[in-house]
């Protein structure tokens, strides 16, 4: 059976290759820092299960230190814009096909595990989509290599070109998830909820609904994740006030409350994988600002939608 461990071994190879290729890149003045950064990540993927919790913490600390000192931008050899244009003209729309292999395999893998007898024996059920995604990537690379015959190292060099353009931001989502675990253990959420309930008069339906939805959005902006905000705000405001005291129906209150949190996700740089990673991938000049172009494009949708959520909850949750 293919498990997440196997996928981690593949991931470790990818990051280890980035480390080696970075170290050899004469064009990058900070090549050793880049090499060390990707090497630590490779170590995490291969050996994370063996070095203990404190070991992993020190490893994370090392990654943070390297990122804080600053990584460089590698310059792997790639094709020129003219070559790319010529290739695009020659190959036509067939070029889109390999890109679709990845989601297709991820979807097929998920469905096979869900709906066949033999699927769960092939792929670990708990992480089926992720494992199928990795398999899809490997298949897509295989197809492209056979079809286009680029140099053997091309997938790793091109991967390095893109990874270096994302840089340390690649690790921000994983780091934030870890911060969430520390917050939970220290009871940060309980404290925030208590403060909220203490200072706002939550005795009418409209105010309670607005406080819950805006609180979800605000706390999501701070935490970067509606999943982290939901248990806190619902335990502090949603359940005791909107549902228990004022008679709201739990299903619409919670469903719409979560979506009010998603409006917050659209407005925060803490939601790194949604708002910071694309700004890096798209090479926006303001990608380091708290309110980068992606977030500024989203705010005018997020605020009307938050108001819509408040109105919808007020109308739909009290039958």
């Amino acid at each position: 059976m293919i498990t997440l461990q196997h996928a981690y071994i593949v991931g470790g190879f990818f990051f280890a290759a980035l480390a080696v290729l970075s170290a050899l890149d004469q064009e990058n003045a900070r090549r050793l820092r880049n090499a060390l950064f990707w090497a630590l990540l490779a170590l995490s993927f291969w050996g994370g299960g063996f070095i203990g919790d404190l070991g992993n913490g020190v490893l994370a600390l090392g990654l943070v230190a390297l990122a804080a000192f600053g990584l460089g931008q590698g310059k792997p050899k790639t094709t020129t814009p003219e070559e790319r244009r010529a290739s695009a003209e020659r190959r036509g729309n067939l070029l889109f096909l390999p890109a679709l292999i990845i989601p297709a395999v991820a979807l097929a893998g998920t469905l096979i595990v869900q709906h066949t007898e033999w699927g769960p024996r092939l792929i670990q059920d708990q992480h089926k989509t992720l494992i199928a995604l990795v398999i899809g990537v490997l298949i897509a690379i295989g197809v492209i290599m056979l079809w286009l015959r680029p140099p053997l190292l091309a997938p790793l060099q091109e991967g390095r070109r893109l990874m270096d353009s994302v840089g340390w931001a690649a690790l921000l989502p994983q780091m934030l998830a870890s911060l969430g675990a520390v917050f939970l253990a220290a009871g940060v959420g309980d404290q925030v909820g208590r403060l909220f309930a203490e200072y706002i008069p939550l005795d009418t339906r409209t105010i309670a609904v607005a406080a819950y939805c805006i609180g979800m959005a605000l706390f999501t902006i701070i935490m970067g994740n509606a999943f982290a905000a939901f248990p806190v705000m619902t335990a502090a405001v949603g359940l005791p006030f909107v549902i228990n005291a004022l008679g709201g129906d739990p299903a619409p209150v919670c469903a719409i409350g979560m979506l009010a949190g998603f409006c917050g996700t659209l407005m925060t740089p803490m939601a790194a994988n949604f708002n910071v990673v694309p700004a890096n991938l798209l090479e926006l000049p303001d990608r380091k600002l708290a309110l980068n172009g992606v977030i500024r494009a989203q705010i005018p949708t997020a605020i009307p939608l938050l108001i819509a959520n408040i109105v919808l909850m007020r109308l739909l949750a009290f039958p």
Partner: protein
Amino acid sequence: MLVLLGIAVVVFGFIVRANPLLVVMAAALTTGLAAAWTPAADLNVMLAAARDTLASFGKAFNDARYISLTWILLAAIGLLERAGLQERARITIAGVKAATVGRLLWVYFVIRQAAAAVGLTSLGGHAQMVRPLVAPMAEGAAEAKFGALPDKQRYLIRSHSAAADNIGLFFGEDIFIAIASILLIKGFLETYGIIVEPLQLSVWAIPTAIAALIIHSVRLWLLDRNLKSALGARKQEAPGAASPEAAP
């Protein structure tokens, strides 16, 4: 109350624009130390608390490796870019006369939302779709209409490409019953003795999904108008490039 210092560190870190990874680590250590602090705590106690915090951060970091695993996608995407995928997307879309930036992003947004609503959240994403396909297509549509783009509009179009992906995903996925957020709500309510079925929850995501569809459709329509007034006039000034619809 002291544990809230961690949140203050996060906010402060973003205001002074420190490296976000550093901010996260500092917030974690601050929180762990604040939770352990008492007036009687000496240096040894605090050192032990720092070590414990680092260990619990490390454990969570190790458990969350799957988040960073998805980066291997870039090896395949980079290979295709090498062969001209972005250029191909631009050529293809430039050939479609009706394509404007707003209409193109609208089509992607609607497909993304509909696909997420039936559980196909992996059809899309910034690394897989936005950078290699959607953004170049949208830029191509604008270039076909208005010629070479100034940086301001180019980056505006790119930002809107990412926004269409996010908004479509967020306000589509909760309609699907087996998505993580629906399961989180169900599990949370169960701990308080309230039993709801996933389907009950997901139907209540539909009104917001429709509101998102309406609001963002208007936004993309406005984007087209904005681009037309910013770039259409500019093009008219160029000799021989005036289009009849851009007058007066």
